[in-house]
């Protein structure tokens, strides 16, 4: 049904990035075998690939997921199905979100297994040393934020490219906005989604970021529910 349709629309993109997420670290390790690169730079490579993948995937999934559904012409077909408009908004979001988490999980596990296998220092020791859980949580929060923002803007603008463009403008403009607020009013706003709010504990900041991200989708739902087709 609608779940299947959302999966069908995003599966190619998802599978491509799932493969990238799964092979990037093992391939890099095999290529640099014997050069000590994995031992010396493995952890930073791991963190960087994790961050990069989680930057690209939410933008793509957010823009693809809802690009056709809420288009003016196909909306007549979709919104005359006996389901609430909220169902369509959240189902599309949920499918993309699940794919996003799957890519993140696969990339994390593949990187972990690779480092554990090739590194002289077992990965679990570095995880609690130079790498912390927060190193992975920050890009994940950013990724959830970017996904929710892109998805919501795509729904609202009824166009994947417009949604992607608007989302990227906001994401790139946010640090400048935060810097301007800090300069003008001396209020400390985080420069990037995922960073802590002022003196708030990290866990609370993360929850606030996720709640803000969910508010975007909720706002999109409210608009879609009130839109006249």
């Amino acid at each position, binding site marked *: 049904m609608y779940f299947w349709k959302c999966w069908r629309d995003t599966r190619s993109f998802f599978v491509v990035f799932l493969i990238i997420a799964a092979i990037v670290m093992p391939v890099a390790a095999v290529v640099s075998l014997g050069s000590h690169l994995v031992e010396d730079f493995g952890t930073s490579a791991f963190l960087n690939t994790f961050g990069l993948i989680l930057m690209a995937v939410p933008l793509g999934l957010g823009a693809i997921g809802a690009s*056709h559904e809420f288009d003016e012409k*196909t909306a007549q*077909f979709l919104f*005359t199905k*006996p389901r609430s408009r909220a169902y369509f908004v959240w189902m599309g979001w949920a499918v993309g979100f699940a794919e996003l988490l799957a890519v993140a999980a696969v990339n994390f596990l593949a990187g972990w297994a690779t480092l554990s296998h090739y590194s002289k220092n077992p990965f679990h020791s570095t995880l609690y040393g130079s790498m912390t859980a927060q190193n992975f949580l920050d890009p994940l929060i950013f990724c959830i934020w970017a996904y929710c923002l892109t998805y919501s803007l795509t729904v609202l603008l009824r166009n994947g490219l417009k949604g992607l463009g608007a989302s990227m403008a906001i994401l790139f403009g946010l640090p400048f906005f935060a810097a301007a607020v800090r300069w003008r009013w001396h209020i400390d706003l985080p420069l990037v989604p995922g960073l802590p709010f002022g003196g708030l504990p990290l866990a609370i900041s993360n929850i606030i970021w996720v709640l803000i991200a969910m508010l975007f989708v909720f706002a999109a739902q409210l608009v879609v529910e009130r839109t006249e087709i």
Partner: protein
Amino acid sequence: MNELAIESKDLAKTYGSIRAVGGINLTVPRGAIYGFLGRNGAGKTTTIKMLLGLTRPTAGAAQVFGMNVSTERMAILRRTAFVSEKKTLYPSLTPTELVRFSRGFYPTWSDSAVEKYARLLEIPMKQRFEKLSNGNQTKVWLLLALSQGADLLILDEPTTALDPVSVDQLLHVLAEDGLDRGCTVFFSSHQLEEVERIAEYAGVVDHGKLLMESRLDDIKSEFRLITAAGNSLSAQTSAQVLSVAVEGNFYRYVVTKDADSFAAGLSQNGATITNVATLSLREIFLQLVRKEQ
């Protein structure tokens, strides 16, 4: 049980200063085939959108199977199939995939109906929607609507882009299969011959107003073209006289309601009634719309 499939009371919709629908009172009996006639921009599609909850009425109310369109949308949509005026669907899906997509929404869905109508309408089920001809795209919409097992079919210009053979097949399906299942068919059109062929009831809308609504036979029996010969006969239109055409001493009156008494009145004024004829739906429609203008 409510005997009406659709009922509206002063249903109106305005977009800013533009009045798309200005207080329509529809009564569509259950199990009937109802032709909703009107020119382009008359307010047909907006009315249909309000019935389906796609657009909110500015004023008035409407009920489908006794359920309020504003508050009981889900229950209405479960029993209603719709063919949009814009025959756009997801371009990358094939008709088979569109069937798969739609099936899960309706417990009354019939796969045997899919097979039957796909064969009857000769739809290429494995071709992507965007690659289909306009006619076949329209047929896919019809296939999805007919297979739904709905109690009410709302079809907005369903024969757009269809060739005459397909139109014939569709009208046959609507008239035979629809009535067999006791399904109500509400279809908008400006193809008067199609309406005349299968509809039992008709409503004529123009400039957002319902000019007339009745059983089709009653409509036809109500209107008469009276040709009279005489001097200085009245050439004024009225509620009863829709139009008057004067050619020399001949006056051609299009009369609604009580044509016999009108003809008798003309005779009393010295006119000679040369002919009293019935009108086709097309002629009636044109007379009504011209009078409204």
